[in-house]
């Protein structure tokens, strides 16, 4: 493999470089935890590799009730931020066991979204939180929900000269992310379940990872959770519905039937944990005598 490395320091420069290249001639390097494997295995052979390392997108900012994450910020920075853990517990749970600590020092949110792997641990929670993606390109800036930007493995709606600049995450919803793997560390999830309760619905959000072509929201299961505090039976029924609706494949990590079984367990647990994270309702006032 031989290529030329370009390291633009401004988004404009990056976009110009991308615009000039033909398809397949240039590859974008974020953290490298995916691209370098692709290069090593000769899956792709671009003439140029464009590193995002020098772009000013390694930040996280709280803007009111939202967390704005620059797309090239390493996941480790999000993991270690104390407010992320308390205000976006689902996101924190999704991040903290990706790969290993050193891998998380390189892996980025933008890279994860761009790769759009069906097994991604981050996509389900971003879907459940209704995250938005800010994209920059030759025609300027546009912002869309994550659900619209992601398509399938290795494909998003980004144009050839567009880049993800940041991800905006509403931070008011209690959330949970649960995963199941053969091993907890340095493994890919067989199934991942994200749950969030958005008070501005009010609305339960359940998203499932490990599906083909990619993670998605389970609106049928969500519809079965009618109240802010579903009963145990409602949780169970929603979990069963999720398991019934999910379309899985069997692969070397798990069979389709095991994935289905996991969904029915993890959806229930994720809803319960999210419930436990909600602010407790105040005690009912005693009736006046």
């Amino acid at each position: 493999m031989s290529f030329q490395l370009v390291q633009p320091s401004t988004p404009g420069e990056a976009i110009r470089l991308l615009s000039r290249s033909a398809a397949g001639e240039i590859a974008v390097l974020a953290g490298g935890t995916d691209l370098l494997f692709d290069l090593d295995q000769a899956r792709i052979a671009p003439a140029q590799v464009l590193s995002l390392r020098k772009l000013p997108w390694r930040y996280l900012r709280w803007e009111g009730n939202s967390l704005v994450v620059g797309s090239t910020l390493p996941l480790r920075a999000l993991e270690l931020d104390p407010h992320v853990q308390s205000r976006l517990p689902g996101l924190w749970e999704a991040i903290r066991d990706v790969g290993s600590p050193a891998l998380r020092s390189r892996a980025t949110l933008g890279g994860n979204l761009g790769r759009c792997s069906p097994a991604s641990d981050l996509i389900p929670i971003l879907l459940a939180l209704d995250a938005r993606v800010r994209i920059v390109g030759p025609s300027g800036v546009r912002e869309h929900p994550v659900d619209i930007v992601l398509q399938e493995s290795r494909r998003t709606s980004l144009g050839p000269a567009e880049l993800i600049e940041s991800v905006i995450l509403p931070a008011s919803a209690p959330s949970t992310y649960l995963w199941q793997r053969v091993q907890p560390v340095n493994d890919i999830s067989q199934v991942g379940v994200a749950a969030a309760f958005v008070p501005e619905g009010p609305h339960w959000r359940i998203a499932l990872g490990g599906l083909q072509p990619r993670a998605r929201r389970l609106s049928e299961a969500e519809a079965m959770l009618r109240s802010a505090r579903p009963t145990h039976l409602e949780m169970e029924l929603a979990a069963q519905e999720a398991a019934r609706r999910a379309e899985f494949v069997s692969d070397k990590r798990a069979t389709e039937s095991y994935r289905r079984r996991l969904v029915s367990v993890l959806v229930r647990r994720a809803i319960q944990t999210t419930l436990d994270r909600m602010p407790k309702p105040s005690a009912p006032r005693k009736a006046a005598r």
Partner: protein
Amino acid sequence: MTRRDAEPKARGALEYGTDLEAPGMLWAALVRSPVAHGRIVHLDLSNARKMPGVVAVVGPDDLRALLPKGALEAERPVFPLDEIRYRGEPIAAVAAETLEQARRAAAAVAPEVESLRVDARIEDIFPEWPSEAAARDPRVVGHVHARHGDVDAKFRSAELVHSETYRTSGVHQVAIEPHACLAEIRDGTFCVRSSTQTPFGLREDIASILGIPESRLLIEGTWVGGGFGGKGAAFLEPYALLLAVASGRPVKLSLTYAEEFELGRTTLPSIIRLDTAVHRGRIVGRRVRLLLDTGASLPGRDFAVGYSIGFLLGPYRTETYEIEGFALQTNKPPFGPHRAPFAPQSAFALESHLDGLARRLGIDPIEFRKLHAWREGDRTAYDQPVGPFGLEAGLEAAARTAGRWRAGLPPGHGIGVACGFWSTSVGAGGEARLLLQPDGLVILEGEREIGNGSVVQGLAIVAERVLGLPLDAIRVEYGDTATAPFDSGVFGSRTLGALGQAVEKAARSLANTLATRAGVKVIQLEMKNSQVMVVAGRRRQKLVDLLTPAERAAGGIEALGKHYAPERKIDLSRVLAGTVYPYQDFTAAVHLAEVEVDRETGRVRVVRYAAFHDLGKAVDPPAVIAQVEGGVVMGLGTALSEEMLWTPEARLANPGLLDYRLPRIRDVPPIHVEVIEGFAGAGPFGAKGIGEPPIIPVPAAVANAVADATGTRVFELPLTPERVARALKLL
């Protein structure tokens, strides 16, 4: 005293195989077969030869010109001449100025291959248990069938027969350091430096593969980044040597992890059928049937199955038995040694079987094992006499611990017990040269330390105990096959026991010589002002004063100790067809595992673990604990997550750490280690080997604990969450 190699290793200062470098060195890459089974129609290497940076390309047609006569008659040809037998099999090799150039050239070779039918799994050859006539299938490369006593009668009259089938998967050694070597020709001598457990074994192997006389081969070991059985036989060295001859330059060859997995010679899958006949609460008969995938092993090499099948009787008195094993040739790399080869898998089957049988009889699993446990004087299936053996003592110690654990056991948890035994090797034997100098003792060896401490520290401790010299005045130095005394190698848990005896003999010889010179019966050594002092009764004198002028000129007094495998008379009627193994000691192990099982997902968590090991005498206690801890955790990998997955085309689907899952720091439970001393082995001070035994009972202990926790037995390794979920009928 901390090990001498610890600090330099921690600083990154020591040289391993992957670090090797020489001026003018070329980098090598292997051209590997794209199919698992096929005939080479045409192998055109001219493309590769023309590529940038390529200096030499070697294929089957080049051997005659490169080597002395006799190379092509080798039992294991270095390149397949005709038939490719596994995917990725090396069919040629390239050396170039950079590694990238070598790999690119190797990838550019597109051999013309006629594909043949692929046998990927045992079931592809035998979908059902084969008859004796089936042994004539050419893919049966080994077959053993032996009986002892009137098995049929015992089964007919038994009160109860317990029958089960177990399945085990392929597992890989996964040393963190991949194989690596550097070959060069110096003054007509074929020199190889390699990360190896067996420098002398390597010399012998390379000689037989390439037809080069041993006298013209010089092998030097480097520090080894883990071996676990995978760095014994010749592997990369012949290719590197051929390229060194062809190019006239030093050649470095090492593997990527993907190649390590795809080419690894290791434990392969098996199907084990066990039937046990019980009468009046005792085992009276056993039938064992083993189908062992031995990959691309050649016919006549039934060592794997002949060797493995004895373990399926376990360390127990078995009145009558019939054992039959088939070694099956599939299109995978040949079966090779992993730590305690195939013993963890055998123990998984047997110890799970005994556990289920005990429960069926309503007898405590530990008591049931005690009823049948070997004692000194019993004989094995290979008609070897069992020496002092601490199995009963281990079971008693385990019972006490199990009782305590049981008393406070939370709901949803389970406890499992499993036993194992091992016969530590002698190999051919070994020698040690000791040089006692005025400022300390040097032990000269041909092996490097592979990690367990037996060479760098264990041998030094033996000398310390015999001579009284403190450890920091004793140093092990490493030579090559020309300068160092012979030793079979670091494998088979043999180093302290066998090579240790060589050190012991040499040390005693030194002591005797000095005692005679000092006019006493017994001397000890000590250090004073950095000088070796000879202590004879109340008299102390400097070592120097007892040396002859010749010794003073030579720098000190030498002694050579030798320990070779003793000859043993064996009743051949009891011996499994053609398989007789020199052994040193039998050692017992008893393990306990406590697990918690998530009954919704099948995930198993090992809560705590206890290991009781009969090793005669703990000569180096910290090393013993280290080996037990390491072996147990390696066993947890075999038990819970490690398995090699092949497609129907015999392609390895998980050649990497992402999907071949090793235990990590958070996977490890507290491990209690208890040494059972007193059942002496033949090693120094009664020591027995400890390198391999700790891995053996682990998968069974975990599986038995899962059965205890859930009431359900899993008959297949590894116990991944999905397999447990399936056994629990969650799917």
